[in-house]
């Protein structure tokens, strides 16, 4: 394929000196690689990756707005559906100064990672690995599915590392005005992240929790509640049907609520006919 002849890369790193240094090291380690963009935060990284469609992404993990992992997941969701002319999803390399959970997760993955300060010998290995991946990849769905599985695994790593409580949460305490409403978890249809809050939807009501979704999720019964999107956790039993639209996106129709919920590509594997 022609793309590997002049491969392109995007660097996402919030510390300007480190972004420049990585670019300089890459110029030495992989002269043919053209760095077509630099992003200073997660949101900009997603936007630039979509606009430039590079072959390789170097994502810092800790960045403002969206972390490197979240940015990669968002990008995977928004990436144009792989078709005959669609460009395959880029090869991902995560860069981190210190992140023990993530590094543990990376060890088992094909997605590569670099530790800061980046050492030239280590970078050389990564470059070789990425070159091999680019040479072998097909525009088909296989490679993309593998990347999605890896991202799912990486995103789940910190949550599983933080010891989940053995007993799932049964009651939610939502403040309504000056009062606190006790909402049984059994009544909840779905949770939706809204800024730093979580909207809780039951068949009749809507409540607001001041707990981020990431803190709530480990306390829920994973059999009953499924994460279907970065900001959506749905009661599996409340889903009536799953439909696919023209763009290939999955949508959930609930039994007792009119709201349709989008399923992220990252979690589309949950819905397969038996």
């Amino acid at each position, binding site marked *: 394929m022609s793309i590997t002849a002049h491969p392109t890369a995007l660097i996402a790193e919030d510390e300007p000196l*480190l972004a*420049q240094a990585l670019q300089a090291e890459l110029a030495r380690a992989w002269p043919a690689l053209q760095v077509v963009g630099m992003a200073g935060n997660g949101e900009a990284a997603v936007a630039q990756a979509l606009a430039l469609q590079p072959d390789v992404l170097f994502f810092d993990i800790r960045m403002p707005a969206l972390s490197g992992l979240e940015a990669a997941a968002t990008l995977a969701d928004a990436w144009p559906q792989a078709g005959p002319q669609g460009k395959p999803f880029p090869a991902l390399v995560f860069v981190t100064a210190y992140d023990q959970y993530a590094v543990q997760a990376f060890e088992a993955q094909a997605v590569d990672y670099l530790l800061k300060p980046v050492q030239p010998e280590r970078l050389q290995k990564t470059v070789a690995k990425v070159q091999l991946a680019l040479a072998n990849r097909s525009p088909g769905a296989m490679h993309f599915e593998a990347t999605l599985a890896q991202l799912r695994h990486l995103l789940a790593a910190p949550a599983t590392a933080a010891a989940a409580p053995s007993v799932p949460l049964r009651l939610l305490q939502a403040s309504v005005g000056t009062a606190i409403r006790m909402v049984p978890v059994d009544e909840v249809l779905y949770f939706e992240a809204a800024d730093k809050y979580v909207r809780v939807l039951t068949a009749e009501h809507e409540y607001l929790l001041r707990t981020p979704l990431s803190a709530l999720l480990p306390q829920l019964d994973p059999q009953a509640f499924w994460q279907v999107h970065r900001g959506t956790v749905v009661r599996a039993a409340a889903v009536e049907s799953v439909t696919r639209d023209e763009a290939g996106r999955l949508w959930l129709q609930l039994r007792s609520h009119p709201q349709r919920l989008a399923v992220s590509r990252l979690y589309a594997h949950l819905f397969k006919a038996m």
Partner: protein
Amino acid sequence: MRVQIPSSLLLRAVQAAALNTLIALGITVFGQESFATNLVYSQCIGLSILALIDGSSRWFIRDWPTQWRRLVLIVPLGASAGFLLGTLLADVLLGNTSSQYWLTQPRKAIGFLVLSLVAGTVLTYYFLSREQLAAERQKLEIARRQAAEAHLKLLETQLEPHMLFNTLANLRALITTDPPRATAMLDRMIAYLRATLSASRQGTHPLRAEFERLQDYLELMAVRMGPRLHYTLELPPELAEQPVPALLLQPLVENSLTHGLEPQVDGGRITVQARREGAQLVLEVSDTGIGLAAGNGTPGGTGFGLAQVRERLATEYGAQAALEFIADPAGGTRARITVPYQA
């Protein structure tokens, strides 16, 4: 005197049985009865005494530190009752009637009772002092471990690996592109590391030194964050020599950076201010970050850094110091420390 509840009954029974055997040996040397007979009596009496003293101290002494004086009654009563009970038991076992001794040889009978009292007292004292020693050793061990853990945690927060490796990565980048700036950054880092490593031993230092260390830290962060970080340090010269606990403000500045500015795409400004308000010295760290409500770390004192600031204030000033957090309506957070002004 602090006494712990005795434990390990079996060990005590074995030790008591050893003492009983010694007593039986002694009596055999000076008396007419066979060693076997003496041993049966000695063991029956000794173990009865142990059972009675042990049982009744468990029953009557529920709280050792306040009730241990009850032993003054328990030990002689337990020893006397144990003597009678043990004698009866041995009589039954050997088919004797030794109660005649009280009539025929009262001196001998009283001698055995006194022996029982002495042995009971000595053994009880021995057991208690051993328990106490073990308890004290354990307490000391726990205290030592806690101190070591606290020290390690302090170092871990101040030498946070993410900060350390990112700073080193920046240094590595600067060495080739801008050596003079690399040297300046390295000097800042050396000063910061030296201050961090000695802070837990140092106690207090002048406010001037505190601001110099904050500047080292903020300069390191400014190199890393580039235009996303602006900072101002305001120290009136007349307050420069005021003593403060070393690196007291560092966790507050770090908090502002990691929870306030770093999550913001455009970064922001940190201001550290010292001023005098009457008899009070006020130290403020304010930022234009994402603010209290939105921040993932609740600054109520959950983070180790903040808990440590409160702890150090309490140790140094007791109730005369305060740490409070004020959410800025315009966004951002203001942490305010008040300590007594040293005239």
